C-alpha cells in the first residue's frame, strides 16, 4: 500500500474516533443533565422525557436524551470503525504497529484507567465530577502510600504482608502519645515521630530476617503481621483510642489526614501521596539505590557478584516499606481522628492488588512505581462506583475479585503477545 492510502486511513481513523467520542460524551452528558444514567430502562427515560416536554423544555440536550439509545449505537459504530482503521493500518505500517504496541504494553495501565473511567462515567451521574475525583483520591491516599511501600518489596521479588498491621500499630502509637500528653503542644510531633519510628523499626525487623537470615519474605511478614497486630491490641487494650479536640496536638496531627490547602480544594493526604510517589520515583529511577533494586529483583546472585551490597539494599527496601506503612498509619488515624486496633486489616491484599494491577510482576525486577498509583486508583474508582450505584456489599466482594482477575489477565495476554 502506498503512503497516500496510509494517510487516508489515518485521517479516517482520527475522524471516526473523534466523532464517536464526542457523540458518546454529549449523549452521556445530556442524560446526566436530566439526572439520568444511561442504563436506566426505556420506560423511565420516556417518563422523564415526557416530564421535560411538559415543563416546556426544548433544545439539543433533550433531543440527545430522547434518542440516547440509537445515538449511542451510532457512537459505538464510529468507534468500531476507528478500531478497524487502526487494525488495517497496523497491517501495513511498521510505525503504526510500533506505536500501537507501545501503547498497549508500556502504557497498558493508563489505557485500562481511561477505559474504566469512561465506563464508570456512564454508570452514575456524579461519577465524573471534580468533587468525586478529589473524594476518590483522598480515599485511596493511604492505600496508595501502603502500595508504594509494598512495591519496593515486590520489586525485589519479595512481598510484605505485614503492612496492614504496621499501619495499625504506628497509628495506635501516635494516638496513644497524643492522648497521654493532652497538654503538651509538642505531642503531635512526638506522635508523628514515634509512628514513623515504629514503621522504620518494623521494616528493619522484616529486613533483618529476610536479608540477613535469608528467610522467605512471605513467612517473615506473615509472622510480623501477627506480632504487630498483637502489639496493637496490647497497646490499645483492644479499644479504639480517639483523638479529641481538647488534646494539644489534635489540630496538627489530624491536619495530616483532614486538612486541605488551596481553599480546601487540595486535601493534604493527596499531597502526601503525590510527594511520596515523586520521591519513590526519584529513588527508583534516578539513583544508584534504585538501579540496585531493579538489579536484585532481576537476578540476585548476579547483583551480588557485581559488587552490590545486596543485604543492605534489601534491608533498606523493607525499611522503606515499613516507613510508608507508618506514614499510612498516621494518615488513616488522622483522617478518622481515632486509632482502632483492627485498622488496616487485609489492607495488604488491596495494596498487593494495586501493585499488580499497575503492571508489576510478582517475580520482581520489573515495574513502574507510578503505575502503582494507577492500580490503586482503579481499585478506588471501583469501590466508589459500586457504592454510588448501591451494589450490595456481598456482590462488591465478588466484583472486586473479578476485576482484579480481569486486570491481570489483560496484562498476561498482552505480555504473551510480545
Amino acid at each position, binding site marked *: 500500500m502506498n503512503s497516500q492510502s496510509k494517510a487516508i486511513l489515518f485521517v479516517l481513523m482520527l475522524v471516526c474516533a473523534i466523532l464517536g467520542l464526542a457523540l458518546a460524551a454529549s449523549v452521556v452528558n445530556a442524560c446526566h443533565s436530566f439526572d439520568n444514567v444511561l442504563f436506566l430502562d426505556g420506560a423511565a427515560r420516556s417518563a422523564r422525557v415526557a416530564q421535560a416536554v411538559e415543563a416546556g423544555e426544548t433544545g439539543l440536550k433533550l433531543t440527545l436524551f430522547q434518542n440516547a439509545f440509537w445515538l449511542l449505537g451510532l457512537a459505538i459504530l464510529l468507534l468500531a470503525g476507528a478500531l478497524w482503521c487502526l487494525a488495517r493500518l497496523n497491517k501495513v505500517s511498521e510505525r503504526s504497529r510500533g506505536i500501537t504496541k507501545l501503547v498497549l504494553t508500556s502504557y497498558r495501565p493508563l489505557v485500562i484507567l481511561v477505559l474504566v473511567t469512561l465506563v464508570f462515567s456512564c454508570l452514575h451521574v456524579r461519577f465524573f465530577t471534580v468533587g468525586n475525583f478529589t473524594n476518590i483520591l*483522598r*480515599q485511596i491516599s493511604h492505600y496508595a502510600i501502603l502500595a508504594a511501600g509494598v512495591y519496593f518489596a515486590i520489586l525485589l521479588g519479595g512481598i510484605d504482608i505485614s503492612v496492614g498491621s504496621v499501619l495499625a500499630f504506628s497509628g495506635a502509637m501516635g494516638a496513644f502519645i497524643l492522648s497521654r500528653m493532652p497538654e503538651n503542644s509538642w505531642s503531635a510531633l512526638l506522635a508523628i515521630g514515634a509512628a514513623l519510628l515504629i514503621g522504620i523499626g518494623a521494616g528493619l525487623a522484616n529486613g533483618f530476617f529476610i536479608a540477613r537470615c535469608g528467610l522467605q519474605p512471605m513467612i517473615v511478614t506473615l509472622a510480623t503481621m501477627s506480632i504487630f497486630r498483637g502489639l496493637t491490641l496490647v497497646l490499645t487494650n*483492644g*479499644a*479504639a483510642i480517639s483523638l479529641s479536640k481538647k488534646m494539644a496536638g489534635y489540630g496538627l496531627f489530624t491536619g495530616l489526614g483532614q486538612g486541605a490547602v488551596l481553599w480546601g480544594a487540595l486535601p493534604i493526604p493527596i499531597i502526601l501521596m503525590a510527594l511520596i510517589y515523586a520521591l519513590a520515583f526519584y529513588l527508583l529511577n534516578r539513583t544508584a539505590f534504585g538501579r540496585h533494586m531493579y538489579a536484585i529483583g532481576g537476578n540476585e546472585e548476579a547483583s551480588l557478584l557485581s559488587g552490590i551490597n545486596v543485604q543492605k539494599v534489601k534491608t533498606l527496601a523493607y525499611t522503606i516499606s515499613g516507613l510508608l506503612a507508618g506514614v499510612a498509619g498516621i494518615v*488513616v488515624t488522622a483522617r478518622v481522628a481515632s486509632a*482502632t*486496633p483492627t*485498622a488496616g486489616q487485609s489492607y495488604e491484599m488491596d495494596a498487593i492488588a494495586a501493585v499488580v494491577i499497575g503492571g508489576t510482576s510478582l517475580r520482581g525486577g520489573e515495574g513502574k512505581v507510578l503505575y502503582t498509583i494507577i492500580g490503586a486508583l482503579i481499585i478506588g474508582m471501583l469501590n466508589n462506583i459500586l457504592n454510588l450505584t448501591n451494589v*450490595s456489599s456481598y456482590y462488591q466482594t465478588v466484583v472486586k475479585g473479578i476485576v482484579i482477575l480481569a486486570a491481570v489477565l489483560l496484562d498476561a495476554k498482552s505480555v504473551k503477545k510480545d
Partner: protein
Amino acid sequence: EDITIGALLSDTSNTFFVTMADAIEAKGAELGVKTIILDGANDSAKDVTNMEDLIAAGVDFVLYNPVDSDAAAAVVEKATAAGIPVISIDRSVNGAEVVSHIASDNVYGGKIATEMIIELMGGEGAIAEIQGMAGASAANERHQGFDEAIAAAGDKITVVSSQIGDWDTTKAMGIMENILMANPEVKGVFCANDNMAIGAVQACQQNGRSDVIIVGFDAEQIALDAIEEGTMVATVQQQPALMGELGVENALKYLAGEAVEPSIGAPVALVTKD
C-alpha cells in the same frame, strides 16, 4: 419528589446488621423512598470512605451505624456541612451533633446476660467468657458488661478463662474444648455472639457436658433454635429490625419538618425458653 436515604452499617457479614439492612430496605420500599446501604466492613477508614461516597451520591439523609463511635465525628460533620442530616443507630457518634440516636445498649446486654448465668450458677463457681473480634467495639462493650456483672457478683465467682473467638464458630468451639480440658469445673459461659455460642454448645455436647450454662448474644435464629432444644439457656435480643424501621420513619419525619426525639430507645432483652 424522590428521596434517597443512605444507610452505613458497620458490618453486613454479621446477621444483626443484615436484619437491620433488610428492615431499612423493606421500610423504605413501603414508604416509597430509595435506599442505599453500604458496608463498613468493620474498618473505620472504609466507613469514612462510604460516607464520602454517600455525600458524593447526593443522598438526602443518612442512617449511620459507625464502625467506631469516635472516628465517626469528623464525617458526620462533613455530612452535616453538605446539608445531609444524620441519625445514628445502635452505636452513637461521639463529638458531633446528630439529629437523633437510636440506642441499643451492648454493655447492658452483656451485663444482663452475665447476671443470668451467675444466678443460674447459684452465685458461685467458675465462669468463662468467649469474646468477639479483638478490638471490635461491640466486642469491647459486651465484654465490659460481662466485667461489670462479675465485679458486682463478688469473689465467689471466678473467671477461669476469657478468650477471644473472633466471632467465629469453629474457633469458639476449639476454645470451649480447651476450657473444658483445663477447667472442667466451669459452670457457665458467656459468648459475645450467637455464632460463638453455638460453637460452645457443640463443644459441650460433644464432650458430654449438658450442664454448662451458655448464654449468647444477638438472638439469631440458630440461637433461638438451640434455646428451644434446651442446649442454650438464653440470648440477648436487640431489635435490629425495629431499629432500622425507626430510623427510616424518623428520617422521613425530620425531612418533612417534624420534630424528632433526640434519643429513641430500642429495648434490649433476654430471650429464654419461655
